[in-house]
């Protein structure tokens, strides 16, 4: 058995609001091994960020609450330790890169200080030592050390994201969570930032949880892929299994929504409809209202995991009787 860095078991999270209860995460399992990158893919509102924030235990409570489940990071059960212990874990064992670099840096503190702060919290170094290390980190992400004293507003978006990466990696965490790290950047910068993250991940032997809705990013950096829909992981497998042997209709829908570079005039096939109301999830499969393959049973019964290989599974009734069922790529 390879080294487990993160294991999530049957995690359920909900938000209790005045308008009702939002079931954001409905029993997911996740496993990330040492040095591997898991891509968590899904549309807005699928529960990706909630899952990520729960690993840092930063879900605002109220309204958020973790109802059940286990989050085990480096053999520590995160849901059972105190807040003080959690503070020693954040930034040291796990750190996070947020979606929007424009707002993720404190505007009134210079970037050097923002990096060295993390170092001096977790490492036994003097102020000077932390500063020196921060300068090194800045140079690793490709920013001259002379810009230590500058403030976030003096950097461009891509540069800011590099600073954020420097902060996140300053204590060489075992797990890096990246929440759509390139969504807010323009395309040319996206590639640079992804390349940098990939390179540093290998250098520091980290594992990574890459949250994204961009399957291109997944193909670029991930080893494994989990497709999330309405708080469930509906399909999971390694890169090849997901891309080549797509099983779940939702995953297929995602692929059909990507422009085809070989045939630029080809029309996109969007997934019809909207995600089901998170205040009131259906009894059966959450996707069945949007699914072209839906069976009668999909309306009434939640599908169970069906394994196609040791790593590849899908939660879909189509395969319950017939595991050889083939999706037809949206063509009717």
């Amino acid at each position: 058995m390879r080294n487990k860095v993160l294991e999530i078991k049957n995690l359920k999270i909900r938000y209790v609001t005045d308008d009702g209860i939002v079931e954001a995460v409905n029993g997911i399992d996740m496993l990330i091994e040492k040095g591997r990158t898991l891509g968590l893919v899904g549309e807005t509102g699928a529960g990706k960020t909630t899952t990520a924030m729960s690993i840092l235990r930063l879900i605002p409570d109220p309204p958020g609450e973790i109802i059940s489940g286990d989050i085990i990071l480096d053999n520590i059960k995160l849901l059972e330790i105190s807040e003080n212990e959690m503070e020693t874990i954040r930034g040291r064992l796990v750190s996070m890169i947020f979606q929007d670099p424009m707002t993720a840096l404190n505007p009134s503190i210079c970037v050097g200080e923002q990096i060295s702060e993390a170092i001096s919290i977790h490492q036994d170094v003097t102020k000077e030592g932390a500063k020196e290390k921060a300068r090194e980190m800045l140079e690793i992400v490709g920013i001259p050390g002379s810009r230590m004293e500058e403030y976030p507003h003096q950097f461009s978006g891509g540069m800011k994201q590099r600073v954020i990466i420097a902060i996140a990696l300053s204590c060489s965490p075992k797990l890096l969570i990246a929440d759509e790290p390139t969504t807010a950047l323009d395309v040319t910068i996206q590639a640079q930032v992804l390349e940098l993250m990939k390179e540093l991940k290998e250098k520091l032997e980290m594992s990574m949880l890459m949250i994204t809705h961009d399957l291109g990013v997944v193909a670029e950096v991930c080893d494994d892929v989990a497709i999330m829909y309405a708080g469930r992981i509906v399909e999971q497998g390694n890169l090849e299994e997901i891309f080549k042997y797509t099983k779940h209709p939702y995953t297929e829908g995602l692929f059909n929504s990507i422009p085809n570079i070989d045939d630029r005039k080809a029309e996109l096939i969007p997934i019809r409809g909207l995600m089901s109301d998170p205040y009131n999830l259906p009894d059966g499969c959450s996707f069945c209202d949007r699914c072209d393959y839906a069976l009668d049973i999909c309306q009434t019964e939640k599908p169970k995991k069906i394994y196609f290989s040791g790593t590849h599974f899908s939660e879909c009734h189509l395969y319950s009787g017939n595991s050889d069922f083939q999706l037809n790529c949206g063509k009717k």
Partner: protein
Amino acid sequence: MYHFLIKFIAVIKYEQIGGTVLKYIIRRLLLLLPVMLGVIFLVFFIISLTPGNVASMILGDGATDERIVELREEMGLNDPLIIQYGRYMGSLLRGDMGVSYADGRSVAGEIGQRFPNTFKLTITAIILSVLISIPIGVISATKQYSIFDNLGMILALIGISMPSFWIGLILIIAFSLNLGWFPSGGMSGVMSLILPAFTLAIASTASITRTTRSSMLEVIRQDYINTAKAKGVSKNKVITKHALRNALIPAITVIGLEFGVLLGGAVLTETVFSWPGIGRLMVQSIQRKDTPMVLGCIIVFTLSFSIVNLLIDILYAYLDPRIKENYK
């Protein structure tokens, strides 16, 4: 006053906040001139509209009509207003604020004697309100909708709603007349400062608390607060180091504006507590139609308010590097 200013500029230079800020200060001070001209113009004409005859007031009840006419002529009160205004501005530019109509004392001398008292009172009040309001605002925001928060906000609402002269009277009844802890008026040491400063501070405390709370609430929802938490920064440090500094900027704006409110409030509070400051001096001078004295007080009020707000704008630059860039 100027002595302080020069010292302050020297400090800024020493701190290397830079020539840009210095230039900014000079520009702002120059802008003060038209403001002062406008204020003096307005007040001069408003006073001239108030009823009453200065000459007969000076001469007293027994004066003959001829003597009154004679004195009016002597004082130039029969000249057109615009000439009187020109005459006043002329001597003001030479640094002469004139003499009091009521008792012939020099306006500058009288104000110089009384201004420190008002300064003492307003500064104590502002320090008092900052010391109370910032912590309450921060705690209210971090524990939003808790009992502490609700209680704090109700008290703040009451504080804003109560007129300061009324609070002053109530405090005098409670703490001077009934309990006898503090003197009911006059200026005699620290004990006599407490009631008027507290009276003056209540309304500003309330509004600074509310501003601090709301800007803090906004700041703690920002992404960079999550970044700080994700780094492992402890809960308290997230608030004091990452949130407070950014939340203080709106709060400081209000502190500057409240300083003006405090000066206005000083007029009432000084009267209620017989505090020998320029607020009370101004009220007395208005009643006596003592134009030079009223104008002198107004000039000092306007100057102090403008200078405080200038200091606050400089403080912004210290708190927020983005604002500093704009001062170039």
